[in-house]
């Protein structure tokens, strides 16, 4: 079922002395197509959990409507919306067995929806099988590993065949290895059931790897919506560019003069179509090419060989933060480690230019991102 958020806003009235209300979700407008896996991505405290709670009905919006398909669900209680929610720490009932946990939502059904014991059991088993925990049904949550608990939580959320599945930081409580495995698992379960799924995360890698669409937000405002690769390649502003990608994008203070990008005194790239102004120039790590004659000079710090490729770590006085500049070079190149400087030429499509004040993207001979916001 598609989910539509229509000017959705949530304000928290401050009880503190400064009386400043917090706008956790500010005017959300978007449509999530049916059957997709959506990653809601942002730094902690950006309001993404609030957005999830609004969709689930645990919180009531200040303004705006929420539609599931053609039904306006804004005023419905959570139980009437047909959502499944997986909590960050799973919220499995510790005194109930795995089976009892999965059965729990079904046992709440009343009146005409009430199911017979056999049907309930059958549905619970089906959900358990889907997440592959059917051998663990008699255990208590305390006896399970984190990954297994996660699966139980998903099974419990899916057992009522919800129209929308919501996951709050589903991988944050797992160790690194399980995380990789579990995110594949989530993707598989989502594809098998075809349920529209929204998950919240602060980990951009997690979001990029499995989402059909990602929504990047900060301080309650949506910054960009799109397919993961599109958002990575074509961020609409500096925040999105900096938030996506590991290692992160390298940002320099620069200026555009006569359709040429200057960083420091060096003219590093022609940028047709951009008027003269101060800018932020972002260069993806993979946007650097080692070139003895290249226009861009950095102070060489060290070279890290990482097997598949080489990471050249250098510094530049115009770097936005004092962080070292990382450039990823293929192992075909060799770097003269004795040299104090290193010179690069740049791949034009890996260089992103932003207005210094607004931090909005400035385009030069590149296609503007398809923003669906």
């Amino acid at each position: 079922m598609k989910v539509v958020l229509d000017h959705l806003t949530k304000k928290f009235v401050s009880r503190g002395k400064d009386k400043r209300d917090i706008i956790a979700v500010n005017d959300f407008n978007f449509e999530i197509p049916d059957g997709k896996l959506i990653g809601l991505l942002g730094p902690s405290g950006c309001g993404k959990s609030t957005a999830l709670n609004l969709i689930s009905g645990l919180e009531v919006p200040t303004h705006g409507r929420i539609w599931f398909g053609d039904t306006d669900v804004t005023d419905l209680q959570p139980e009437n919306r047909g959502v499944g929610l997986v909590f960050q720490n799973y919220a499995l009932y510790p005194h109930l067995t795995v089976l009892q946990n999965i059965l729990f939502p079904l046992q709440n059904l009343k009146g005409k929806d009430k199911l017979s014991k056999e049907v309930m059991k059958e549905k619970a088993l089906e959900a358990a099988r889907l997440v592959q925990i059917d051998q663990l049904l008699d255990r208590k949550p305390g006896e399970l590993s984190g990954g297994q608990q996660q699966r139980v939580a998903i099974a419990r959320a899916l057992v009522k065949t919800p129209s929308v599945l919501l996951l709050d930081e589903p991988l944050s409580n797992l160790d690194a290895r399980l995380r990789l495995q579990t995110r594949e698992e989530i993707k598989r379960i989502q594809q098998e059931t075809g349920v529209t799924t929204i998950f919240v995360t602060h980990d951009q890698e997690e979001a990029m790897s499995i989402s059909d669409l990602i929504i990047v937000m900060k301080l309650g405002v949506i910054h960009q919506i799109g397919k993961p690769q599109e958002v990575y390649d074509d961020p609409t502003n500096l925040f999105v560019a900096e938030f996506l990608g590991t290692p992160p994008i390298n940002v320099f203070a620069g200026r555009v003069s006569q359709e040429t990008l200057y960083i420091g005194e060096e003219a590093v790239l022609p940028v047709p179509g951009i008027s003269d102004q101060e800018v932020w120039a972002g260069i993806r790590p993979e946007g650097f090419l080692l070139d003895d004659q290249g226009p861009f000079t950095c102070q060489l710090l060290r070279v890290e060989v990482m097997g598949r490729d080489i990471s050249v770590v250098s510094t530049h006085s115009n770097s936005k933060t004092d962080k070292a500049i990382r450039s990823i070079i293929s192992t075909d190149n060799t770097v003269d480690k004795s040299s104090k400087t290193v010179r690069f030429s740049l791949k034009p499509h890996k260089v992103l230019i932003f207005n210094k004040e607004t931090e909005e993207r400035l385009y030069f001979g590149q296609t503007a991102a398809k923003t669906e916001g």
Partner: protein
Amino acid sequence: MKSNNMKAWLYLIPAILFLGIFMVYPLVDVFIYSFEEGYNFASQSFTGTGLFNYSYVLHDPYFLQALKNTLILVVITVPVSTGLALLISLGLSSIKPLKHVFQTVYFLPYVTNTLAVGLVFMILFKKTAYTDGLINMLIQWFGGSSVDFIDGPYWAKMFVLCFYTIWIVMPFKILILTSALASVKQDYYNAAKIDGTSALRTFGRITLPMISPMIFYLIITGFIGAFKAYQDAVALFGTDLNSAGMNTIVGYVYDMLYGDSGGYPSYASAAAIILFVIVLTITTINLMIRRKNVQY
């Protein structure tokens, strides 16, 4: 290593000394006393050993009265106070404004002097030649007839005693249950809400099982506390509890030791050991039930 050994014992000496003299030795001694027959406090001599002290105590009408009073007190106050505390704690945890004020007020009885406030209860419930007292005034307003709760019929006296005991033990129970309820994570309630769980089912299937260890803890400490009731009775009915017919087991022990009956440590020891055995048995039964019912 050796000097460290010495040093450690030096640090421990005061504690060991005090505990040895005032806890371990008396513990052994009380058993010895309880078997020494015809012990005379003045000459510190006794005539024989045996079970006579126990037999005496168990046949003493004052002890039987005390036992009966204590049992009634336990059976009434433990369930009533625990249930009431649960209700109040649930109420407390469901509100936001004034919560802190209520909590602070509810805990007040804990820090008051049992005997001092007992006097207030006494004048509230007592009927004198001058006035029927406030409680009787209320009873008359509602069309009942007045009764002297302090020097009157047994059930009235028992009622005041139970009421005062509950008033005294509530702060502790409310405190424990409120923090137990607060420790149940909001996520569980959110999960239940998403699943459309009714309030009653949420309480029965989620809240109650999750706080059940604390409820059992309160029941056990409640039993132990109520079996040791004494000060509340003294506060309401004065030190001569036997003649008021409101003595408790602990009161009986102290009366035997000192006070009007005057110095029978052997009988006191026997009574104290009987009390200890009763408490131990009840606690064990409680723990066995708990093991069966609290599942995590």
